């Protein structure tokens, strides 16, 4: 077992970030990465609950869902998908730079990732505004104006799920930007070094997870029924 192995391990140097209750930095890193993965497991089930609502209602109301989906413009969604994938790449490169100890590169890639994240949120905000202008907000006391009134009721469910899922996703992005700001400061202050870069790796895991969520949301929300309705 890992703990048994790590006890005998490096007594020689005592890293300043090694917490008192760990035997070695390796045990500490292992534990924190493992903890992050468990947290991501909870995130899977968190989004999974909303996904289940989506599945059930889509099966109940396939036509309304396909129609409602075809009223969402693909282009901003596709651009956002690309933006997120690029940001995932830059995040991975930031971790890579942390492993090799190139501090300037870490800072550069974190900043690029943050810019891309902000761009994603900007485009998302624009999309939300469009939904508002078109009358696709299924609540807030606003009038829901769906072009095909006979599907209006069930289209409200689609847009409710759309806003819940994309809203939660955007919220995760905002948290991610916060975490990255924190990492930026830590790198700048020299807290992070080639021994101790688990925090950057953890933020990276988080960011990639948010990317994965979007990889599923894009086809599920934007692309269903495109082949039937060319909206």
């Amino acid at each position, binding site marked *: 077992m890992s*703990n048994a192995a790590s006890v005998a391990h490096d007594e020689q140097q005592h890293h300043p970030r090694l917490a008192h209750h760990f035997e070695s930095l390796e045990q500490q890193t292992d534990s924190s990465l493992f903890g992050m993965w468990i947290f991501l497991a909870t995130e899977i089930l968190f989004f999974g609950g909303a996904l289940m609502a989506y599945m059930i209602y889509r099966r109940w109301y396939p036509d309304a869902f396909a129609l409602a989906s075809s009223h969402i413009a693909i282009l901003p969604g596709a651009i956002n998908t690309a933006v997120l994938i690029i940001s995932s790449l830059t995040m991975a490169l930031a971790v890579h730079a942390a492993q090799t100890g190139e501090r300037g590169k870490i800072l550069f890639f974190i900043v690029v990732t943050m810019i891309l994240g902000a761009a994603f949120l900007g485009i998302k905000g624009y999309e939300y505004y469009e939904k508002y202008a078109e009358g696709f907000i299924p609540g807030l006391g606003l009038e829901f104006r769906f072009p095909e009134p006979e599907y209006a009721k069930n289209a409200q469910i689609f847009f409710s799920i759309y806003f819940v899922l994309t809203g939660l996703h955007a919220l995760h992005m905002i948290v991610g930007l916060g975490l990255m700001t924190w990492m930026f400061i830590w790198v700048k202050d020299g807290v992070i070094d080639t021994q101790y870069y688990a925090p950057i790796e953890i933020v990276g895991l988080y960011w990639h997870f948010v990317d994965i969520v979007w990889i599923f949301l894009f086809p599920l929300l934007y692309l269903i029924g495109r082949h039937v309705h060319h909206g």
Partner: protein
Amino acid sequence: MSSSTVAMPPTHYLNNGLTLKSWLFTKDHKRIALLYLVAVTFFFMVGAAFAVAIRLELATPAGDLLSDENYNRVFTMHGVMMVFFFLIPAVPAILGNFLIPLQIGAKDLAFPKLNLLSFYIYFVGSLFTMYSIVSGGLDTGWTFYTPFSTIASTSAVVPAALGIFINGFSGILTGLNFIVTIHKMRAPGMTWFRLPLFVWAHYATSLIQVLGTPVLAITIVLVAAERVFGFGLFNPAVGGDPVLFQHLFWFYSHPAVYIMILPAMGIISELVAAFSRKQVFGYTFVAFASIGIAVIGFLVWGHHMFVSGESVYAALVFSVLSFIVAVPSAVKVFNWIATMYRGSVSWETPMFYVAGFIGLFSIGGLTGLFLASMGLDVHLTDTYFIVAHFHYVMVGGTIMGYLGGIHFWWPKITGRMYNDVLGRISAVVIFVGFNLTFFPQFVVGYLGMPRRYHAYPEEFQVLNVLSSAGASVLAVGYLMPLFYLAYSLKYGPIAGDNPFGAVGLEWNTTSPPPTENFKTTPVVTWEAYEYPTPVEGHVV
């Protein structure tokens, strides 16, 4: 008691820093456990106060003491407080927090800061929920069924739901912390099958917390989106399905029952071994029974919905799985009893709680079979039979186990001993009061009295009066430990490191333990519950 010439260790976690700040910002798992102890006890009192109001109201058939509006708020808050702020955190956050690092030979949990954060998240969550009491109350029942909670209720649903949402993160983080700790922080030689069963039980519990709680969180988000923004997610008016809420809710909330009972079962395993001075019979079976309950427990939630309009076929699947989950629980009970066989059974207070637990949990578990039986559940569900059943499991089981654990580890936690005679009396009073309170509810439930009724037909009165009378006995039983335990803090005799002559790493350190738990990292070379002969008050 064993050796009498014992003294407190000069330094220990309790006197390592005496300022308020050293408590409120502590990262020591033992101190955080005590912060929880205070908070959880407080919320138990709050929940119990609501219970008193319920039993007073139900002493007469007419709804005369409280208005129907207030009664609904009272039973809702009783449920919310007891379930989310007492039963779910009670054993893991107090005893689990205190003992897991000690039992596996670690200096602390893997993430001490996260542990402190969990406490404050719990605290903030409780504030929101408490706020809902003063800002109009909550009248949805602790189950928040839609569409009542989303479109009909005029009460403060959002703050209460927000409080439960926030509190959920406390549970998730505690569970995450335990899992990582158990995987990564075990002392050399502490293999998986040398772990105390208390740790196994907490591992299983943590799995449920980590995998189930997020679904509760998203459910609350969906309810809030419907209630606050007017989104239609469960609303039949736009084609939504209110029954979907029940699936999501029970996917968490049925396993949550196992979050409450599994840690208590872990305590009972420890207690049976310690007070029989004997290895737990069938250690691996008991360990895997915990994991089995945690896993199968996720497959049975639909038994809450037999009459809710779920498909007959789905009900059938949920029913058979519900029957199957009864088996590992039965296995545990049999193994505990077999552990006592040819043991050296002590009659100290914790053993009385063990006996009470086994009795009450058996009735609670067996009446679960009634409810897993679909043909019978149609009649029984949503009556007082259900109320009696889950109180037998969650109160008779969990609280008996919890109090047994508190009495067992009290000398370890505080370094002092309580009055054992009073302890035994309290166990008996609780056992008698409990049965008086809840046994009549089985009868009145089969008669057909629905739960959550503010007024009821007159022929149910005698049984309800019995129940209310029993509740007053039960209240005395619960108050007793509060007094003699508090008294022992100052005037109790010094307990010594191992007053019960038990084995387990936690008994290898001082009482109370030092902040670092052990002077040197222990190396484990023995099996769990391995009693060397003869016992001399101090082992290994």
